[in-house]
């Protein structure tokens, strides 16, 4: 709490490296944990069970088990979710609230992951995530993926993508959004995936890239089938019916949350009921014809 206030007040700049990790202040916190997740600091010889609200430092290693996940909330509001069967290390984190910029680098050795950039990361995260065979530059986005055997399992039966001959560190990366037509203030997502000396840019939500192994070039972009996305999602998200963690239920939140209308109406931002019949109509906006209707160039007899 002290750190976050300090950082957000603009008096602190976190510019840290793994070598100096031991004395560093925390860069985030364990926000949510599901099932079996262990962590250790860079200098620790052994893993320990992860604890909610425990601080996260540069160099921390996260290891998760089957059907397990950890969400890390970083001080720049970025969120890193480590999914099932994963091993992830935060290698670098830079946050300068004075300049409104941040940068992150994390390496995923295996398993599933999901990353949502904070508002200050845009344009800075050139090498935000790396796997054994690829690096992912983030231009403000939601990106998720899987490394190793999970990547191959997710891609089973994916049209146009062969996993035959794939080796260690095979990596699947999916851009999830925000899409071009999102109606929030978040920047549309885009990532640059580099592997085997080739960089592939992905700018459409739902598109994926696959790298089969060391030295191999990216395959894609392509769209994951619903069945394959379901497998990836199962490594990162819970399902209704999964066991809870013992926290009290919120009850019927629909009456004030989902049903607020603001959430229900996806056209709430950007909808157009204006009187203008020409100037402001984008190609997909809804316009209800209405007065005034101006007939230009008239002056004759009806």
């Amino acid at each position, binding site marked *: 709490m002290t750190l976050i206030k300090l950082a957000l007040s603009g008096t602190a700049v976190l510019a840290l490296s793994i070598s100096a990790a031991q004395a560093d202040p925390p860069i985030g916190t364990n926000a949510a944990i599901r099932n079996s997740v262990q962590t250790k600091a860079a200098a620790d010889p052994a893993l320990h069970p992860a604890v909610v609200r425990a601080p996260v430092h540069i160099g921390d290693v996260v290891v998760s088990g089957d059907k397990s996940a950890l969400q890390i909330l970083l001080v720049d*509001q970025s*969120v890193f979710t480590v999914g099932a069967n994963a091993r992830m290390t935060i290698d670098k984190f830079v946050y300068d609230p004075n300049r409104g910029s941040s940068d992150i680098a994390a390496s995923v050795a295996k398993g599933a992951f999901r990353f949502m950039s904070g508002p200050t990361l845009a344009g800075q995260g050139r090498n935000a995530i790396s796997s054994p065979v690829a690096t992912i530059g983030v231009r403000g986005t939601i990106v998720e993926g899987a490394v190793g055997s999970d990547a191959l399992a997710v891609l089973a039966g994916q049209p146009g993508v062969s996993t035959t001959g794939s080796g260690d560190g095979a990596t699947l990366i999916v851009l999830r959004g925000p899409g071009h037509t999102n109606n929030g203030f978040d920047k549309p997502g885009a990532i640059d995936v580099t592997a085997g000396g080739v960089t592939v840019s992905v700018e459409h939500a739902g598109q994926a890239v696959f790298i089969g192994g060391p030295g191999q070039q990216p395959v894609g972009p392509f769209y994951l089938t619903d069945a394959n996305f379901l497998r990836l999602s199962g490594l990162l998200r819970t399902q209704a019916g999964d066991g809870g963690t013992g926290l009290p239920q919120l009850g019927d939140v629909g009456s004030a949350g989902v049903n607020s209308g603001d959430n229900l109406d996806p056209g709430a931002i950007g909808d157009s009921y204006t009187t203008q019949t020409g100037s*402001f109509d984008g190609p997909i906006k809804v316009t209800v014809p209405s007065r005034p*209707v101006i007939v230009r160039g008239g002056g004759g007899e009806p």
Partner: protein
Amino acid sequence: MSHGILRSLLALGSALFALDAGAAFADAPTSFETIYAAPDDLAQNLAYARAEAKAGRLLNAASALERILLLSPNENGVRLFYVAVLYRLDDLQGAKQQLDALDPSTLTPLQKAEADRYRARIADERNDFKFSGNLAAGLAVDSNALGPLSTQIDLFGLTAPKKVGDSVVTSGQVELIQDLNSEGDLAAFGSASIYSRQSIGGPDADYLNTQVNLGINGSGLKTNWEIGAVFRDYQLFDSPYLAEYGGRAAFNWSPNTSLTWIASFEGVGQSFHEPYVKQFVPTFISGTHNGARYDLTVGVSYRLSATDTFSGAVGYEMKTAGYSPFAYDAPFLDANYQTLLGGGAYFDIGGELRYIDYRKFDAFFLNVRREDMFGTGRMAIGAPLSSFWAQKATGDYRENIIIEGAMTYEERTSKGPIAAYNDLGFEMRLIWKFGDTR
């Protein structure tokens, strides 16, 4: 009838602004610091998600909801909220998967209705072919029913007498979109709209216009564009008046998520049906109003917040005509402000000023080189029927039916013998939206 429409407008406005005030007090702000300190507090995360979603910061909302669902997977309402956020983030595949994840759950009737509604919307949007539209019907009263139309018919300085008129207003619009590639960033589109006013009291002031657009559009990370053909037909007093046919191109550029620059160009040929004018051709004058019209507009749209948007534009219109005194140049200025009041309700105000400078002295009809100043304004408030229910949502047809009240003002002044006019109008109508309306 005019008093009835006015009373209805006032009642609608009062009710909607009361809804907005209630919504403002309902949301207690939850800061990021609060969440960072207690990220496993489900209630705080939900409050934070609501506030961030309402402010348009959807990534923050999504991360808070994901925290809740990791810790408490059986929060069906939260999962449905998560569906809505993913949908707004344009992650349709993710939203569908989360809906599927709700299948084994027992939902309240309203939750089930909303889930079904999202499932249908997502299916529509993932389809390569999209269809949407609206139908509207209502009543209008004008203080000077013939005033706006007299712009079209004022010959020799004559202007219709000022009379109150009541009319039935109906309109409809359909739009079809066919994606041309798998990314959905190139599409063919077609749209058609019709607007009709039929007098039911006062002077006959019927008019009808139809418009058809066909073309292709494309989009990138920060841009979108469209180019296509346009056809319009106008009928005044149940008789053909004008047909326009030509092309239109538009380009939008959004350097950031708040700001969009807009440029458009339209060029159309004009064919008037005016036998009275034609009988002087070629005996007294060299041609008619027939010619071409070109319109260049440059504008900007700025989102002041997630609920407030301002748009403005400047433009230049140029018309040629067979009889050269009918040709003109017309710079104009548009402005519009829209705010969302919660529950799908909206308030919209806008207007236009247009200076029409006719190019040549009219020696036959008016004996003057005509100059007009034309101004219009419209203020509207509307809301879906669902916003009048306690939860501001019903998950059914009531969310697609909007009641709208509007006040319009039109005025023209002119140099020379043409009389000035003004008209104050009130309108109440029901609008039914259908198809994929995003």
